[in-house]
């Protein structure tokens, strides 16, 4: 009985409906030869969004489109493009949504300004609460 189930497993392990039957792109699951380039590719892929997933980077997804995007990243890096150029190429096509690293634009500037404001407020609060003067008496704990 177990063998029958196992045999069924081989059959059922085929891809489900509504998925393509072509193999993944060459560089979807293969790394580049040059370890430095591969490291750059990996770092870049972690910051690009898989457009068909709920919220994953293309480095973390098995979706075919994520694989195709990984292929693009690796082949372009191997061809000499820089990670920033590849990111820009994708943003030109999909908008800022595809990149997990927000750029400073007219709509995202608060993201970068508010941390500075928080830093300022933090500094003011600390300055208002702490004083250099030694206390009147030194208390033990």
């Amino acid at each position, binding site marked *: 009985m177990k063998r029958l189930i196992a045999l069924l497993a081989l059959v059922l392990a085929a891809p489900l*409906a*509504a998925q393509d039957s072509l193999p993944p792109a060459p560089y979807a699951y293969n790394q580049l030869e040059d370890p430095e380039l591969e490291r750059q590719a990996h770092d870049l892929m972690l910051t690009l969004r898989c457009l068909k997933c709920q919220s994953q980077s293309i480095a973390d997804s098995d979706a075919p489109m994520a694989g195709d995007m990984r*292929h*693009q990243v690796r082949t372009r890096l191997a061809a000499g493009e820089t990670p920033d150029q590849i990111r820009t190429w994708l943003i030109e*096509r*999909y908008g800022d949504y595809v990149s997990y690293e927000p750029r400073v634009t007219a709509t995202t500037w608060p993201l970068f300004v508010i941390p500075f404001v928080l830093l300022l407020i933090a500094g003011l609060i600390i300055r208002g609460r702490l004083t250099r003067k030694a206390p009147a008496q030194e208390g033990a704990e």
Partner: protein
Amino acid sequence: MKRLRIFLWGLVGLALFLFGLFAYQLTQPKDEFVESAMIGQPLPAFDLRPAIADRPGLSSADLADGNAKLVNIFASWCVPCRAEAPHLETLRMSGAEIVGIAIRDREEDVNRFLAVYGNPFTRIGADDISEVQLSLGSSGVPETFVVDGNGVITYQHIGDIRADDVAMILEKLREAGA
């Protein structure tokens, strides 16, 4: 103490702002589609081999021949593509020239699909690794782009074309100079 009160009022203001934002977003339908940012841009250069024997392949040069066209991104394994096939036929009969890009498809599967659901395409390019799909800013199937005679993308329709979309697409095609 005055500082505390000011700070508290600030917090209340922030809370109200956030709740307002949440309430607003609750009323908006969840938009799962990712729109292409290439609207208004010229098509990137590409050259796809024919997907089936019966139709020539598709290149960007073919789309800059002076006539506005519809580019339909589809696949035989895509379920909504079957639903939009009759409407593509309607568009073709209304005079639209439709070219297709088959995503990650084998020749026999595309042939089988077209035999069952009809073939409105004058050309079909085979995009095995979604390269052209990515370069157009398309993120799924089916999608339809309106491209004018100079090869500039003027409109993107995401999802399958429904009966009430046909008129609007024809209008966009007319605007592009068909």
